[in-house]
């Protein structure tokens, strides 16, 4: 029967796709346990059969004299976390305003303002980053933590505003009015009543922002050169050698994978249903 054939075709497709998705990931993981000889005599796929796994790369990462890994990891983490926090706090206030009040700046109404803000993400970052480079040179912001945090915040603020607006719009205004009757002043109403109700939205916006900042390469490449470098820069500098130490790169790559995996697992529920689909209507 046709449907039986269809069922086998479906299983075959799923199998092929799952192999295509997982094989490169496995390749990266296994590479991190290989010695340099095994990598360059490759391809070796199966540990203990093809090659003898070693923890060498994983151990060397943490030895300060042998790698710059820790400072870059710290940079990546701090820049991503701080910029996401700023973006979510500032974004939450703006999103609340756009959800609750009616604005009119010239011809611009609420929808136009929020589209204007998010339109920044349509512009390829290379357009602004060239100008930022020139400005950062003047401001002595090149290769500084605050320069990177500002740049990442500017990258994430539009998304935070855009996502959170729909979350705040979904919170019934009656709850706020009840809090007002109980004598809460406006700011406390926001902090005590509205923000807790929008907690899933705030968390999603934070994690999504973190994800984007964590993965950024272009800003870091243009605006840092030494002490403010992030993990992606570290990876690219390692791979620029003539015989790159792929095991080391792979190990860093696996560690860099952790935050996005956590983000995805936590967001999975919201993301697949509301945040992305609802936010980009």
């Amino acid at each position, binding site marked *: 029967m046709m449907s039986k054939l269809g069922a086998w075709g479906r299983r075959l*497709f*799923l199998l092929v*796709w*799952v192999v*295509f998705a997982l094989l*490169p*990931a496995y*390749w*990266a993981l296994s590479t991190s346990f290989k010695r340099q000889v095994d990598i360059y005599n490759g*391809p070796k*796929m199966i540990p203990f059969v093809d090659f003898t796994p070693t923890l060498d790369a994983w151990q060397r990462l943490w030895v300060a004299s042998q790698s710059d890994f820790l400072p870059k990891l710290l940079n990546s983490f701090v820049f991503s976390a701080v910029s996401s926090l700023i973006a979510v706090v*500032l*974004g939450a206030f703006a999103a609340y*305003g*756009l959800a609750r*009040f*009616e604005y009119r700046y010239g011809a611009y109404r609420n929808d136009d303002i929020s589209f*204007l*803000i998010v339109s*920044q993400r*349509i*512009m*390829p970052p*290379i*357009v*602004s980053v*060239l*100008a*930022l*480079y*020139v*400005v950062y040179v003047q401001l002595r912001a090149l290769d500084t933590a605050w320069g990177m945090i*500002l*740049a990442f*915040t*500017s990258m994430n*603020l*539009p998304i935070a*505003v855009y996502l959170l607006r729909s979350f705040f719009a979904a919170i019934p205004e009656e709850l706020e009015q009840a809090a007002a009757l109980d004598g809460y002043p406006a700011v406390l109403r926001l902090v005590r009543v509205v923000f807790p109700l929008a907690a899933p939205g705030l968390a999603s916006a934070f994690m999504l922002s973190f994800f984007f900042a964590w*993965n950024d*390469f*272009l800003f870091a*490449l243009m605006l840092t050169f030494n002490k403010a470098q992030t993990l*992606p820069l570290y*990876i690219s500098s390692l*791979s620029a050698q003539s015989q790159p130490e*792929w095991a080391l790169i*792979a190990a860093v*790559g696996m560690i*860099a*994978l952790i935050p*996005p*995996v956590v983000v*995805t697992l936590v967001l*999975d529920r919201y993301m*697949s*249903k509301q945040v992305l*689909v*609802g936010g980009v*209507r």
Partner: protein
Amino acid sequence: MTDKGPRSAGGAWYQHLLLAPPLVFFAAFAVFPLLFTLYVSLSVWSISGDHRFIGFGNYAELLTSPDFQTTFFNTVAFAVATVLVEYVCGMTAALMLYRSRAGQGALRLAFLLPMMFTPVVVGFIWRTMFDPSYGPVDALLRWVGLPSVPWLSERPWAFAAVVIADVWQWTPFMFLIIYAAMRALPTAPLEAAVVDGASSRQVFWDHMMPMLLPASLTAILLRTIESFKLFDVVYLLTGGGPGVGTATITLSAYFTGLRNGDLGSAAAMTFLLLVVVLVVTTVLLKVAARIGRTKPRRRVVELPQTSPSEGVPA
């Protein structure tokens, strides 16, 4: 939202304060850089700071440069190829998973995994995968009996390698959105169609596809915008080579501006890129708006509000 009238009348100062930070950031990190880049693009501007206004000289030079023409073509071709392949693969994967009863949770997470890798790491993975001497791709080809392929050193192959790496990483994004939309579809009309004797192909094309159009457009729009920014993977995978065979505008602008110190020419490149992105985005948004307006007859379901739980087999 019912009492918007009275509250909008005055517009207390703190209401405007709420919007101030994003608008200030927008001015400082979007509007100002945009205007500044425009000015730089009209000048001879060296990275050491010397500059002189020259008008459209940089643009004229770029438009006649064969290297830039290749780069421009690459950028557009990458966008078209990756978005197309990712949409078809993402849709197929979503549909196959939607129709299978077992393993939805585990398979879905496996499908999403590539998206979680840092793009630079994706570049590293595929550079070693495609390596002619120690990469598994060529080993696989040899094992099947096919000739090995100069993946990273010859034009059409290097181009394909970049597309494959991008497809590997970003098909999951298409899949994520389309699969979520699929699970939010009302099951009743689909079941009714099956009862009426529609084949699974008819159910898909006549009933599911029209309802998936808004989500499809969203996914395509977002991926198209992102695909024009393609940089990290190319930087690591081919470095834009051979020659400028796989260079994108972002990559060329980086090399021209920061490595060769010719900021004026680099700025002009990015402006041409921006024009392309704006044209494409506007067209896609117009299409999306038109489809949004003509939807009522098809009983299209608004995605965000629908509870997907009923569409998920336990």
